């Protein structure tokens, strides 16, 4: 891995790190560097860092086709190849990439994987990895991470249940280590794992601080715009000194904005929680529809579950027993955070409280059952139980065919009318 030159502001530092990461991926094969395909939820990156894998995040590749307005071509290729329109559009964009000789619109030629890890936190990950098995001939490593079994599930260290889940994850991590040793020819280095974990711990500490800083009014950043660039960088550089440095810079910058009372929105009037994944193909438009009304996304569940192992619950590794601790934190992160979209009603209501928010915006994704299956039911519950204003809009991750601007704008405008009325009744902001 090549390191990058430090930058003075977080934005350019983040950009440089992303460019550097892509450059490292681009040259991985010629440098003889092993490549791992991983997803953002439950990826055991700590182990991969020990073995020196370059990390490719196909989810990020796919969302980038949306950001770079290239998604329609990739989706069309996959559908022409035979994939149903109802299949996850990230999967289809990735298939489109495979059918485009791995030439990504970022200019990076994506390398083939030496290892592919699919966690069970999203079942589509597994089906996706099966596609790689067939295309690249790379066997999938499925990491089954048992999530919470019901909404009030509390993993309690020391109980038989906790031990059972942890033992299961640890057993699989040991299998993964054996596979990595086979692929790279290197022996596993426990000290190196501890070092990576210390870096991750520092990143978690900073990440929790950054999330908490957005509880201030005005919110210094929009979690569904700025926040997305943050998690891109922290996923790609998790466990590295560069990642820590970036997070520190970012924390300082966000803290400085708070000290100066500088908000993301010039005249912040409404603070909102966003639930679901963004529509990357219309990202700026989506945010703009809210910001023109003075609405800012102070928090989102996306920034918790899409932040890899950097769970906002503030779970830290114990580097004095690195492997056991990795199994524990992976399991706990899954049960306290990453598997939350199935039972997120209480968590969302808590976020509303923590961030003094005025309502929740649910974004249903046409092709993502993980995030969106029961959103409408969740909304009904939150509205009825907590009396919170909520909005439900629907589009897709990267498929522009499902973005209906006029319809979404109408719904957003009507939502703000409700918020305005409530604000008037409460005596205004």
């Amino acid at each position, binding site marked *: 891995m090549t390191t990058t030159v430090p930058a003075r502001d977080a934005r350019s530092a983040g950009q440089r790190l992303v460019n550097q990461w892509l450059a490292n991926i681009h040259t991985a094969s010629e440098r003889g560097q092993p490549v791992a395909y991983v997803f953002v939820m439950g990826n055991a990156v700590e182990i991969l860092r020990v073995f020196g894998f370059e990390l490719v995040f196909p989810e990020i590749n796919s969302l980038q086709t949306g950001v770079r307005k290239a998604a329609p071509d990739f989706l069309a290729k996959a559908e022409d190849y035979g994939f149903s329109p109802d299949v996850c559009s990230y999967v289809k964009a990735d298939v489109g990439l495979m059918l485009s000789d791995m030439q990504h619109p970022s200019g990076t030629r994506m390398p083939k994987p030496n290892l592919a890890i699919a966690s*069970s936190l999203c079942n589509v990950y*597994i089906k996706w990895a099966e596609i790689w098995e067939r295309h690249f001939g790379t066997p999938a490593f499925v990491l089954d991470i048992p999530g919470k079994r019901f*909404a009030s599930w509390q993993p309690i260290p020391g109980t038989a249940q906790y031990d059972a889940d942890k033992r299961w994850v640890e057993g699989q991590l040991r299998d993964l280590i054996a596979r990595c040793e086979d692929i790279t020819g290197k022996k596993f280095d426990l000290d190196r794992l501890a070092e990576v974990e210390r870096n991750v711990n520092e990143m978690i500490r900073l990440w929790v601080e950054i999330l908490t800083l957005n509880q201030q009014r005005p919110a210094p950043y929009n979690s569904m715009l700025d926040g997305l660039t943050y998690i891109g960088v922290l996923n790609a550089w998790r466990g590295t000194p560069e990642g820590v440095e970036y997070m520190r810079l970012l924390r300082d910058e966000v803290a400085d904005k708070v000290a100066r009372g500088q908000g993301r929105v010039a005249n912040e009037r409404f603070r909102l929680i966003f639930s679901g994944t963004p529509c990357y193909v219309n990202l700026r438009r989506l945010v703009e529809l809210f910001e023109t009304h003075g609405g800012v996304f102070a928090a989102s569940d996306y920034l918790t579950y899409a932040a890899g192992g950097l769970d906002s619950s503030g779970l830290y590794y114990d580097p004095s027993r690195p492997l056991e601790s990795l199994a524990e934190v992976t399991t706990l992160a899954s049960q306290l955070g990453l598997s939350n979209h199935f039972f997120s009603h209480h968590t969302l209501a808590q976020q509303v409280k923590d961030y003094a928010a005025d309502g929740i915006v649910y974004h249903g994704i046409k092709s993502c059952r993980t995030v969106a*299956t029961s959103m409408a039911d969740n909304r*009904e519950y939150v509205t009825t139980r907590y009396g919170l204003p909520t909005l439900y809009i629907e589009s897709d991750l990267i498929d522009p065919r499902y973005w209906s601007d006029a319809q979404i704008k109408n719904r957003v405008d009507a939502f703000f009318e409700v918020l305005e009325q409530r604000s008037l009744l409460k005596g205004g902001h």
Partner: protein
Amino acid sequence: MAVEIETSLTEILARCHELSMRQRIPDDETDTAIGYFPVYFPEEIVHAAGLRPHALLGGGNRIEVRYADARIGSFVCSICRTTTELGLNGSLKGLGGFFAQPICDAAKHMAGIWGRNFPQQDPQILALPQNVNSSAAVRYVYDEYQRLRGILAQKVGHEIADEAIRESVRLYNENRRLQRALYAMKRDDPDRLSTVETYLLVRAGTRLRREEHNELLREVVRLLPERRVRTMDKPRVIFLGGFCEQPPLELIETIEDVCFIVDDDLLIGQRWIIEEVPEDGDPVWALAESYIQRSASSPVQFDARKPKEDMLMGMLRAARADAAILSAAKFCEPGLDDQLALSHRLDKEKVPYLVLEFEEKMTSFEQMAMQVETFAESLLFE
């Protein structure tokens, strides 16, 4: 004699049909019925507790969806929608427990939906693993089954003894033997037993006590060899796509009008364990080990030992089938993803196949009939 046999079979099948269509929890099963969402569930443990396993198989095409559309995204499979409808319209209010499993992302949400709407049913996920290839997998499944055992023991107010579970294992082993006998019969002599009939006979087991189901199947297995049959000449096909959401009966009938379905994955969870579960030793361990080591395959279970294309080719060979019908429920991501991989292999092997998409709630089959007829004709004239 032949008439009597046919009359007996007709009566049994009519009863199975009535049972299969039953959605509401009967009053005498209130609070003892333990609902589970597909695919597989270790029913033996539920049975040993003296409770009634109740497979949740959606609402079929005879249910009016009035409430669930407002609770579930429009792009989600029908079985999730109609199961939610059955909950919201009160048909499942008698459930004493509800379990979803991590077979897919939509199914995991069912535990959340149930938790928000029917918390008194103690809804949760039985976290069967997606990694069955680790040496740690049996122990993990064992631990999860013990958790289930504890939950059920709490419901009934007493421990569930090993011997009670062993007894249930024996009963279910017999049930699986009988189901295998039916499948062998429809494979070897499809004029004698159709897939619609086999399906109804198996599905009835999801609504009967297993003792009663065994009795029913024993009777059918006794009667069938004596059944008078008319030999027909139809292509032999296998049907895939019925592992979770169930296609309407009319769809199976439509195919059977012109083809013999000599093997299928309909209600595969009922036949998930393909060999005898050991009847000695720790019965929970035996069930856990069987889940990992003696099991079928499906698009919702990753297993490096069972590449889907090889499983398909094995199924075609074993059933001596001429062709395959690759079906998937609408919005079923695992099913839709697999269709493509399977069709590529069939192309390579030059095996004819037909791709179909269904929804349990579909009511019009004319267009599908035309597709299937054309396909069958192409097979006959090949």
